[in-house]
Every structure is written in structure tokens, then in C-alpha cells.
């Protein structure tokens, strides 16, 4: 699914990622942990194709395709989804409208039929229910005035609707209360499938109790300094990142 080789990324002239190697096979869930400022969000932005994140060395292949040649929206239509650490507000655009525009844009790009209002409404309600997102919330402008937890739930709703083949969840657990954490984790787990891969960025082992990863990586100073199984997260929780010579910035 995803093959990253010796990836170096520069932002505003500053090298943030310094040679990342990462393979995520179809159906796998990888967790990435690491200190603040180690480059986790940077990695997610690079995968999504954000402007200003310059790949100076290395390669990223997604299903054998060179991602660098694809625009942001093309990558999305190809199945890459990023749940943002800080979701953006879109004033005046209801969540419903936004979701419909996004879904139909992707369907159109893939040569599929666009959904009409009725079919869309049915689908979105079906997806929203398990995430405790009600109609009232869907009618509000996207992320405007949403609480931190509501924003994260809305991100997971978008993922669930768009059904990506590779989902990157950047600290989707932060800001969630215990119940919401469970709801979100259940939503994510429900999407696990042999065809879908996930990269879960988190600071907390707690999330990984719910979303059990196949592989855990520690990202520090722009490099993956350790890779292990799910027990690595537990270890980190106890001993912190110091053992990996983490220099936070």
C-alpha cells in the first residue's frame, strides 16, 4: 500500500524529516508516537501533498504510484485521507454540504455516479449515527463553534463517509472525553478491513488499547528511531522517549 524510502522533507528551508523508511501493507494499522515537534504532522502533510512541504530526497509510493506527481485532491480521490490534528473551520458551509461536495467530487474523479440529495442524506445519517453526530450538528457550519471533541468526531465521520484506503489519523484522540474516545475508536475499528491501512499518530497508549496497532514506530528528530509491536507503546508509556535519545526539536 504505502512505501516510503529515505524521505527527506524541508519546510521553509528547514529540514524536518531526515530519512524516513516506512512500509504499510494493506490491512495494517501502524501507530506513530514521538515527542512534540518530532515531525509526525509533517509526515502526514507530506502524504497529503501540502504545499510548502518539499521532498528533497527519497520517494513515496502509494499502490505503486509516485505520490509526488499527484495533486492534493487527486491523492484524496485515490484514497488518501488525513484526519487533521487541527481541523479547519469553513464558515457558512454546513457540514452536510461540505460532506456532499467532498464525496461527490471524489466519486466524480473516480468516474462514479454522483449521489443525489436523497441518497446522500440516507448515507450520511447512517454513518453519523454510530459517531453520535446528530442532524443539528450536520446543519451547522463545518467545525465552526464545534468543541474540540466534536471536531474530532466530525473528522472521523468524514473518514467513514469517504472510505479511504489509507487513513492517517493525526492525534484524533486528543481532546476527547472517555466516552467520545470509545465512540471514535469504535468508529475507526469498524473501518478496519484487509483492504484498508491506517496510520494512527498519538501521544497516548490509551488509544492503542482500543485501536490495537500491528506495528508501533517511534519518530524522533525526523527519524524513525524504533519500531516494534503493540507492546512498544506500553514501554514508552513507562519510560518516555529519553531512551531513544530524543531531542524534541
Amino acid at each position: 500500500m504505502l512505501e516510503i524510502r529515505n524521505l527527506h522533507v524541508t519546510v521553509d528551508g528547514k529540514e524536518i524529516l531526515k530519512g524516513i523508511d516506512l512500509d504499510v501493507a494493506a490491512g495494517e494499522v501502524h501507530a506513530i508516537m514521538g515527542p512534540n515537534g518530532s515531525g509526525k504532522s509533517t509526515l502526514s502533510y507530506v502524504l497529503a501533498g501540502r504545499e510548502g512541504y518539499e521532498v528533497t530526497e527519497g520517494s513515496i509510493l502509494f499502490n505503486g504510484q509516485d505520490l509526488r506527481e499527484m495533486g492534493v485532491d487527486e491523492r484524496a480521490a485515490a484514497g488518501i485521507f488525513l484526519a487533521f490534528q487541527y481541523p479547519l473551520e469553513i464558515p457558512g458551509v454546513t457540514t452536510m454540504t461540505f460532506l456532499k461536495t467532498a464525496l461527490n467530487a471524489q466519486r466524480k474523479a473516480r468516474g462514479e455516479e454522483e449521489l443525489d440529495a436523497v441518497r446522500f442524506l440516507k448515507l450520511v445519517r447512517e454513518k453519523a449515527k454510530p459517531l453520535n453526530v446528530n442532524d443539528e450538528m450536520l446543519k451547522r457550519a463545518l467545525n465552526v463553534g464545534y468543541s474540540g471533541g466534536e471536531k474530532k468526531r466530525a473528522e472521523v465521520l468524514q473518514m467513514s463517509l469517504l472510505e479511504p484506503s489509507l487513513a492517517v489519523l493525526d492525534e484524533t484522540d486528543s481532546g476527547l472525553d472517555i466516552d467520545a474516545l470509545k465512540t471514535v475508536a469504535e468508529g475507526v475499528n469498524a473501518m478496519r478491513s484487509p483492504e484498508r491501512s491506517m496510520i494512527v499518530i498519538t501521544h497516548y497508549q490509551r488509544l492503542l488499547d482500543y485501536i490495537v496497532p500491528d506495528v508501533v514506530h517511534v519518530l524522533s528528530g525526523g527519524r524513525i528511531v524504533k519500531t516494534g509491536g503493540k507492546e512498544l507503546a506500553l514501554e514508552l508509556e513507562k519510560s518516555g522517549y529519553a531512551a531513544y535519545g530524543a531531542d524534541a526539536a
Partner: protein
Amino acid sequence: MAAVRETVETVGEVEKYKYGFSTDIESEKAPLGLTEDTVRFISAKKNEPAWLLEWRLAAFRRWLTMTEPTWAKVTYPPIDFQDAYYYSAPKQQAKLDSLDQVDPKLLETYEKLGIPLTEQKMLAGVAVDAVFDSVSVVTTFKEKLAEAGVIFCPMSEAVAKHPELVKKYLGSVVPTSDNFYATLNSAVFSEGSFVYIPEGVRCPMELSTYFRINEKQTGQFERTLIIAEKGSCVSYLEGCTAPQRDENQLHAAVVELVALDDAEIKYSTVQNWFPGDEEGKGGVYNFVTKRGDCRGANSKISWTQVETGSAITWKYPSCILRGDNSRGEFYSIAISNGHQQVDSGTKMIHLGRNTTSRIISKGISAGKSSNTYRGLVSVHRKAENVRNFTQCDSLLIGSKCSAHTVPYVETKNPTAVLEHEATTSKISDDQLFYCMQRGIGEEEAVALIVNGFCRDVLQQLPMEFAVEAQKLVGISLEGSVG
């Protein structure tokens, strides 16, 4: 006005006037330039009564003493008013046989706007097939209106058939001496509509519907007059989302609205005239005077406008809140792209007690355009308990455009409560990235964000136009990013 001549010539319809006024009243066109004879020619063409000719002439004489206003934030080469034509008979559009004969660019836009095929044909001047008989639809509308006692006809027909109404109300809101362009219009106006809603009648249909079906060529100096008698109600939509080309560069329309006790007038405009080419050449100069008079108690006038076209827009739909408890509203979306210049806003003149007004202006500037909101809220001495709420939001796309907000407030009564909010924002790269990460293309993302920004105003439009207007917003901003 060299530019006018150029445009006119390119359309290939300049044929120098060969005869003097007195010798050829059959001519389709008034002589070049503007003299008393031109005014007489127009009036004679329309078979107008003497009083109207006198009215026009008085305006013309007044106009000669006036100078063009220069306070708006727009720049353009000086207009030579003697180098323009002020009257030509409305041309019958050549009927085409099929859509294949229509400019593909135009069709592409119709498509994007989602205009149904039959309507596309009518708009483009293609003979409409039997499935949709526009004539009979228009007739049905006419019958329905007549049943309700509503008068809805061209201004010239109203002059002939309802002279007492025209005489009573024409110029009663925008006097002939009002401003340079309104005065010019008073002297030479030739097209426009007349609407009269009798007491207690709710107009049985959106007058927009009628218009859409019966689209006519717009005139250069239109004059529209709408009168809503006591307790009546009407919604009127002017213009069209489909792009309109016009060989006349200078447009100076006047619209007058009169609302008597408990009456309500909702006037919506979608303006999409040719804005000029990429270098900013050509394009319509739109110098309009629109004013509504809430003459009766508890009356209400609401202006909604979506302005996306024209090279220059100079336009301030206003309300005179004369009747006690009357209400004025102004909802505006003004989009400027390329080299367009917009100076638009409103005036709310509070004369009566407990009068309220609400102003929501959304200015979007892209390209190298300039977009100014200019508004006045004025509260007179005797106007107790006035309330106004004004919100002016500007959205900038790119770094070469500009937005300006110029609010004027005059209060002579201390009981007035006036609120003003203004914001200026940019579409952030982060927002665009976020939308695009969800698979939305860049232009669609811009359109989505801008539509969100305009939502409060779009909601004011008559339903059947709201969807098209949303699409129009996107189309007007094409090419503004990247």
C-alpha cells in the same frame, strides 16, 4: 466616448445618422450625441404625452448644468456624452434554429449554471420547440396577474394606459434632479418595467418567474417603477444569472419603489453583464440609481443584489424610511475579479419613528479588482427609536486586489441604536488545503468557501435563483486562484 463607439462599431451596427430629427422620425436610431432634439426624438418615438416630454426636457436642461460625480473609488477614462447614441429601437434578436448555432462558450456557462435546456434556448434566442410553449406560459402568467389586478408592463405601455399612476409616482422617489446619472436617465430613458399592486393584493407569483421566461434585451437607460398599494406585497427579480453581453458600454438605470402602508416590496437583482476582457478592455459601466420609499407606516422594502458583472459598478440601492415602523433591508454580494471596479452599498434614511434597517454586505475581490462598500445610515431629528444593524464583510482572494469599507453615519436623534460590524478576511491556504484533502478541486473549494461566506445573503434570494446564484459565484471566480 471612444470606447462606446468602438464597441458599437464592432457589433457592426453603426450607420451614421443621415437625416435631421425633423425629417426622419421613422429612423431606428437617434442621432449621435445628446441635444434637446434627441430627447424630443425619444419622446416622439414613444408617442408620449406633452407632460412627459416637458418632464424629460426639464431633466435634460438640468443635466446640462451638472457634472459627473467623482467621489466613488473607480477610475475610467472621461466619458464623452456627445459621442454616444441615446436611442435605438429594441432589436429583434435573430432567431436561431438550434443550440448548435450558439456560441459554445455561452452554452458552457449555461451548463455550469444548470439552466434547463429549454430555457437555454430561450436565453440564447433559439426558436423553442413545441414541448415548451413559452408564449402560452407567458399568457397564463398574464391572465393570472390580470385576475389579481396587478399591472405589469413596459414603462412605455404604462405611460399610455395608466398615465395617472405614472404621473403621480414617476420621479417621486428619485427626482429628476437627483444625481448626474439619474438626471440623464430622466431625460433619455426608454426601456424598463412598471408594476402596480393594488391594495391588499399579494402578487400571485414571483415576478422573476415571468421574467425568466420572457427574457428581453436590457436597455441602456431603463426606468423601472414599482408601486405597492396599502397592504400589498410583491417580489421582483431583475436580471439573469446567464451572462449578458451588451454593445452599450454606458448603462444608467433608475429604479423607484413605493411602498404604502403595510406594503412589502422585495427587489432582487442578479447582474452579470460583460465585465471586460482579461486586460480590462470593454465591459459595461453600470451607473445605477435605485431607491425605495417606505412611504406608508409598517411598510418594508428589501433589496437583495448579486453583482458579478460589469467593468464598473456604481450602485447604492437605498431606502427612505418615511413611514413609522417601516423597515429597510439591503443584502448584497458584490464579486469583483480581473480588472473590475465595484463601488456599491446602500443608504438607509430614517425619517419615521421606530424605523429599522439591516445591511448585510459581502464583498469578494479577486484578481486585480477593487471592491468598495460605501454606505450611509442617516437618522433624522424626529426619528425616534431607530435601529440599524450593519455588517460588512470583505473577502480577498490573492494579493493584487483590494477591498474598502466606507461607512457614513449621521444621527440627529439620540435614541438611535446603530450597530456596525466589519470584517476583512482572506481564503487561507489552510482552508483550501483542507478542502482539497477531501478531494475537492481548487476552484470548487474556492467556490464552496465563498458561497459559505455569502450564505446570509444567498438565503434572501428567491428559491429558484438561489441555486443558480451559488453556481454563478463559483463561475465569476474562475481563474482567480493558482
